[in-house]
């Protein structure tokens, strides 16, 4: 790709730059400001240097331990949902109907969970999974399994994971479906002529062609699950105990619940840095795959 160099392009980018800078940089400066101060209320602030950061990164302190726990919990959660949603999404994409009214119907139903406000997603699963009024909760208990997600940490985790799978697997599936649709028919025909098995078609044609969209899917799912807040907040409120307190939930608790602005700000910055670093890794991998792909010709 040899795009002409033209620095006046900045004029076209300027409005976006300004609004995102306004929305991102000004608040981050507030956060930096808070992160080095302490307050005893009454809007009185005192210089605290890097104290909050030292505390945050030292697992032996209350704050540090809490942060590390939430971080591990969040990473575990992201790993679990990726391990389920990516293979399941691929399977669904491969199983999707190819033509006729069924395609439209399937697409609409699949996209539906993605368009539901996140707290409503929490509410839906609350009323679905509660043992007293929910269909799923009632049915599981009726089978003789003791299930109560508000009391049992394992049940809470399973419920949140299933909820996330319900909420987001379609995103992965739709991305893969888009990737599959871009494969020209000739590839399938050639594979049939070459006597390839269904599995060989998957590994030699479909998976390589899906690589790019799968990267986008993993990026979006990882990042979004890493900042998950609303759905588990509505469903479990972070409990039972702290069992489902993910990073964002913990952060909001400290910031808006306890108004511990210094701690919250320090945590925000570290949290944001982790996200930025992970995002950069994905971005680098993705742009590399991108240039690789541009070299191939792309038959219509």
């Amino acid at each position, binding site marked *: 790709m040899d795009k002409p160099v033209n620095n006046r392009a900045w004029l076209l980018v300027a409005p*976006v730059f300004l609004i995102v800078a306004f929305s991102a940089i000004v608040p981050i400066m507030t956060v930096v400001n808070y992160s080095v101060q302490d307050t005893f209320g009454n809007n009185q602030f005192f210089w605290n240097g890097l104290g909050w950061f030292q505390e945050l990164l030292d697992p032996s302190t209350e704050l540090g331990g809490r942060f590390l726990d939430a971080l591990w919990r969040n990473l575990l959660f992201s790993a679990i949902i990726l391990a389920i949603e990516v293979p399941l999404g691929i399977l669904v994409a491969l199983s999707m*109907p190819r033509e006729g009214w069924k395609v439209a119907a399937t697409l609409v139903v699949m996209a539906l969970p993605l368009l539901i406000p996140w707290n409503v997603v929490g509410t839906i699963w609350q009323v679905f999974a509660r043992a007293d009024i929910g269909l799923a909760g009632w049915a599981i208990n009726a089978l003789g399994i003791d299930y109560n997600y508000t009391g049992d940490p394992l049940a809470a985790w399973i419920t949140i994971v299933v909820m996330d799978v319900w909420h987001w697997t379609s995103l992965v599936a739709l991305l893969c479906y888009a990737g599959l649709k871009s494969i020209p028919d000739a590839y399938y025909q050639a594979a049939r002529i070459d006597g390839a098995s269904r599995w060989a078609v998957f590994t030699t044609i479909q998976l390589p062609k899906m690589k790019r969209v799968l990267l986008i899917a993993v990026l979006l799912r990882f990042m979004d699950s890493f900042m998950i807040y609303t759905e588990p907040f509505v469903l479990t409120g972070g409990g039972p105990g702290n069992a489902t307190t993910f990073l964002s939930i913990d952060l909001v608790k400290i910031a808006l619940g306890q108004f511990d602005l210094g701690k919250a700000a320090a945590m925000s910055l570290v949290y944001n840095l982790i996200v930025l670093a992970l995002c950069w890794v994905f971005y680098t991998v993705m742009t590399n795959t991108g240039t690789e792909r541009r070299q191939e010709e792309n038959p219509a």
Partner: protein
Amino acid sequence: MSAHMQPSSRGGTLVMVLYLAFLILPIYWLVNMSLKTNFEINTTVTLWPNDITFEHYIKIFTDASWYSGYINSLTYVALNTVISITLALPAAYAFSRYSFVGEKHLFFWLLSNRMAPPAVFALPFFNLYSAIGLFDTPWAVALAHCLFNVPLAVWILEGFMSGVPREIDETAAIDGYSFPRFFIKIFMPLIASGIGVAAFFCFMFSWVELLLARTLTASNAKPIAVTMTRTVSAAGMDWGLLAAAGVLTIIPGALVIWFVRNYIAKGFALGRV
């Protein structure tokens, strides 16, 4: 022509039926519950309402504190979508057509804001919008959502624009079109589906986000999703009302999907398939 695409097998059909059932079941339960009386909800588990009632819906449509929530939500969603697309169009064009100093870093920085946790921004946004007097207005939420929707719109539009051959721009320039006229008369119609998809995603992410919307509003601009969190009354949870409000938040999304269903897959791939 996709007539030869590998046929979906019987196993595939089974997977689809199970998956779609899994998707629909919780929604069905919500609808079911919204049509029951609270007495029925609290006493038995029934697969359909024994005593069907519309009282919860009637309450929502007649009580201003409920229906104004919908109006507030749709207002900031619409504002955000218009702002995001308007700003993103020229920027996406610049990214797709030119290289310029800092291009790659800027693109990454924009993208990183799409990934930034809203929880980090909740408190500083509260301070910021209070300071400039926009707190508790739809503008506050609409602008706050630009944080992730503008980068997303740029990303999607850039993907679609890169699919338009550059010769079109050059031909138009030779034909004597000024840049703004070329952009509006020729270029925008060419990426109309991309604009539709980007608008859909701005709508979607603004509509589903709650943390910022909740933090930046108090009473006047309170979104419906927040109104819903206040269904606890002296008599306990008003489950029927909660379910009915939930059903009503699903409907706008379902309507919008219908219009973009043919582009949805490409859109989720951010125009990059």
